[in-house]
């Protein structure tokens, strides 16, 4: 009786192991990130990206103005630049470039540079 059961148990375990490995292997970039990209989370990310770039732009403009005494012109210029950077961040997040604020994988001019997707 035990001889009958053993192979099927092992096969069972093997199948379970394979299923678990499949799940584990696929998890890092798919399951984990998919849940990060769900609804509220992605909306929150986009909000943060937008505001962060704007805040940096305003901070640079304000500090340069204080340093050069050119108030308020540089503040206005860098406010607009910061807003543009924020929009660019949002576009990059929304396009899903690896979820980074950073650089696009292959730009139109750098198509020859092959990188892992």
């Amino acid at each position, binding site marked *: 009786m035990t001889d009958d059961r053993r192979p099927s148990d092992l096969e069972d375990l093997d199948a379970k192991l394979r299923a678990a490995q499949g799940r*584990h*292997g696929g*998890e*890092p*970039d798919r399951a*984990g*990130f998919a*849940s*990060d990209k769900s609804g509220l*989370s992605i909306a*929150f*990310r986009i909000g*943060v*990206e937008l*505001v*962060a*770039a704007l*805040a*940096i*732009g305003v901070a*640079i403009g304000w500090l340069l103005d204080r340093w050069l005494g050119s108030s308020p012109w540089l503040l206005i210029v*860098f406010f607009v*630049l*910061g807003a*543009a*950077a*924020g929009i*660019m*961040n949002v576009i990059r997040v929304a396009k899903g470039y*690896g*979820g*980074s*604020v*950073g*650089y*696009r*994988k*292959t*730009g*139109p*001019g*750098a198509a020859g*540079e092959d*990188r*892992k997707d």
Partner: protein
Amino acid sequence: MAAGHSPLEQFEIHRLIPIEVGGVDISFNNSALFMVATLAIGSAFLVFGMRRQAVVPGRVQSLAEMTYEFIAGLIRDTIGSEGRRYFPFIFTLFVFILLGNMLGLLPYGFTFTSHIIVTFALAFVVFIGVTILGLVRHGLHFFSFFVPPGVPIAMWPLLIPIEIISYLSRPISLSVRLFANMLAGHTLLKVIGGFVAALGIFGIAPLALLVALTGLELVIAFLQAYVFAILTCLYINDAIHLH
């Protein structure tokens, strides 16, 4: 709900051992205590888990190995084989943030990741490290990072400042994301917890919600540590490969 038990009370900093060096307050506070606890638990978990390197791992050992393989897989997927040398840094970062988030969920716990200065310091270290890495590996060529490919030279004066601002905003968005998630989540738990006590017998309804939310908080605690780690990987990847 007793007076003085505000939902935000959990985020207050208390001095435990007042220390002052040259007029600078470097007291050992509860935030520092929980960082030390995080380090101790993280180290104990790995050292104790891997003490007996059994072929068939026990529970602690398999957990330690799973954590290792999770981060190793993350690095392999985002940076590739070149990223292996950054494994210790990313692994430490991940475990530190994960345990910090988790410890804050314990009763009387303190979440040091719910303070913007802590998360900002972490993000700033990543930012400076990645920038230095890019400069060391590519020299002055690193600055071509700020020039979008395939853009006419006439547009450069406009686009380069935008790219630089976008680059500088990285540590802010990285730190704000972790900090805000932790702050909002833990405050929400405390607010709902207040309802449980205030409603008496009907408090069973918010209690049920609280159980569900605690589960959600555990997921968020993990997810935020994971997002921090994966973004660090992507930044390192950017610095190594440029574009």
